[in-house]
């Protein structure tokens, strides 16, 4: 996981710089997301691992699948070159890490942050707004909230923004109480 991240970093940065020069940040995000989905496919993975298939064949296959999914846009030359370069370096499996890295860079540039809120009960829109408001104050960034419900928390919520975790759930408190009593 983290191995691919190291490999992906320079690629993601290069694409990000290219895209921001061209002013096509959003288009590249779509392209990379689709490409990542393709490379994550188990059939594609097996094919990529096969030594008998040449890199040039990889590119051909990859692009034909891509064209099948994204027929609205004819693949750009830059994108073709990018896939060709990855195939040549044998890094097509790192595509999903590259997409993630690119997304993070884009969010950073936009001053946005994805926040996951897990709560015991479904959140009302008002609650979401309040959480978003106070998080924006704390993080100094625009917050987009995705929420999910996990009844195991009993009550309260866990907020995740990247590495930062704010755990206000009863489950975590009970866990802490049990460690305190077992000391």
């Amino acid at each position, binding site marked *: *996981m983290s191995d691919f991240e*190291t490999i992906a970093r320079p690629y993601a940065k290069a694409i990000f710089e290219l895209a921001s020069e061209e002013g096509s940040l959003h288009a590249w995000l779509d392209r990379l997301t689709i490409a990542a989905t393709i490379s994550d496919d188990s059939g594609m993975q097996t094919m990529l691992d096969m030594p008998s298939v040449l890199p040039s064949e990889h590119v051909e296959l990859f692009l034909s699948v891509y064209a099948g999914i994204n027929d609205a846009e004819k693949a750009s030359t830059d994108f073709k070159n990018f896939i060709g370069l990855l195939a040549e370096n044998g890094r097509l499996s790192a595509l999903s890490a590259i997409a993630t890295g690119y997304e993070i860079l884009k969010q950073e540039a936009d001053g946005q942050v994805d926040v996951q809120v897990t709560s015991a009960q479904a959140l009302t829109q008002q609650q979401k707004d309040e959480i978003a408001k106070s998080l924006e104050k704390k993080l100094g960034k625009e917050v987009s909230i995705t929420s999910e419900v996990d009844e195991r928390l009993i009550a309260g919520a866990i907020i995740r923004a990247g590495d930062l*975790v704010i755990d206000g759930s009863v489950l975590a408190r009970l866990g802490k*109480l049990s*460690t*305190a*009593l077992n*000391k």
Partner: protein
Amino acid sequence: MQLNPSEISELIKDRIKNFEGTAEARTEGTVVSLMDGIARIHGLADVMSGEMIEFPGNTFGMALNLERDSVGVVILGSYKHISEGDTAKCTGRILEVPVGEQLLGRVVNSLGEVIDGKGAIESSQFMPIERIAPGVIERQSVDQPMQTGLKAIDAMVPVGRGQRELIIGDRQTGKSAVAIDAIINQKGTGIKCIYVAIGQKASTIANVVRKLEEHDALAHTIVVAASASDSAALQYIAPYSGCTMGEYFRDKGEDALIVYDDLTKQAWAYRQVSLLLRRPPGREAYPGDVFYLHSRLLERASRINEACVEKYSNGAVKGKTGSLTALPIIETQGGDVSAFVPTNVISITDGQIFLESDLFNAGIRPAINAGLSVSRVGGAAQTKIIKKLGGGVRLALAQYRELAAFSQFASDLDEATRKQLERGQRVTELMKQKQYAPLNVAEMGVVLYAANEGYLDDVEVNKIVAFEDALLAHVKSNNADLLESINASGDYNPEIAGKIGAAIADFKTNGVY
């Protein structure tokens, strides 16, 4: 089912009452891999070097390697219950241990947790295990003696308060014995002791604790134990934990003595941790910072001045200096002092006590090599009487060593040479001392005076030990006031010399040995 002592309802009520369960913001990461007590963690974006990392199950680790995509953490203690994918949390605190008087008389592990089964300690104060050593301005020169109670050391390689004196020798040469005698001798002096046992058998540590207890020395001692079965990480941090506990006393204007037994094993443990963290190996496979490993530890042993004590104690203690004396121990392999770790520690410390197996086997115990042992700063700190009388001993032994080798070839020797040889033999014999029997300054003064003034010249060599015992018993019963006054002042003048001379002469005419 049996109830634990901690399961009394009062206690449980208390704990629930004081329990703070507020929501907290922490940085989290995920365990990517875990092997040999080293966890690689993905995430933890704002981790500090040396920060405590919390794992599930109340387990803690210390962040050592901060890399671009992962953090290398050594897990302190058992890691069997942690698995890949577990979350690891930052605590925002550098690794710290409890400090204070309540630790005295107790056996704790490297994290300051009690392991002697005598109940929990109420510790209110914690200090980080890695602290910066006092700077130039905060220090004061070493000028007070730290009596070890061993004639050979106090007379020839004196140790001052705040000094770092290395004890070095092969296995089974009595290195620990010297250190433990020094601890026992601090009884009643107000010097607090810390004995850090690293990588030793648990049974050996238990023996040391029992011996200290037998000699009433445990009450002023903290034993920090990281036995051979503890993880390498715990063995690596044990000296730093012990040092922090000692610094607590130093910083409040008291004197403390710390024994690191031994730093060779700590270097091994650190080598293991470093190699597992994939740091590049250097000489003898030690990592590049093995010198810094010991230098930063030993630099914390120091004497600090009154202003510094006042600053550390927030003005509560005025007009007192504090000191932490260190006796690190290094085990050599086959007498090889030019190996990596021994040369490092020799160069860091303010002198060394060389113990040799040949001398040990010849029955000279403590097996101190008087020629190679030195103390670079202790001379300034010696008690006046020992300084005056001890000089002769060093000289006599030096002359003896020179002559002993070459006299083996000479058939007949002139009178002066023969005398020097005989004096040397007697002084060598006199420097022998039983374990767990430290002498005070006055007793040492009397014995050294007898040797210097030639009272031993007509005593047979094999009777010297008996003579010494009988002499001390005689002086103790007949001249107790003299001993007391010497112990109180430490002075040496013609009047005292005359009194000691008279006491010895009295023993030689009336005493039996």
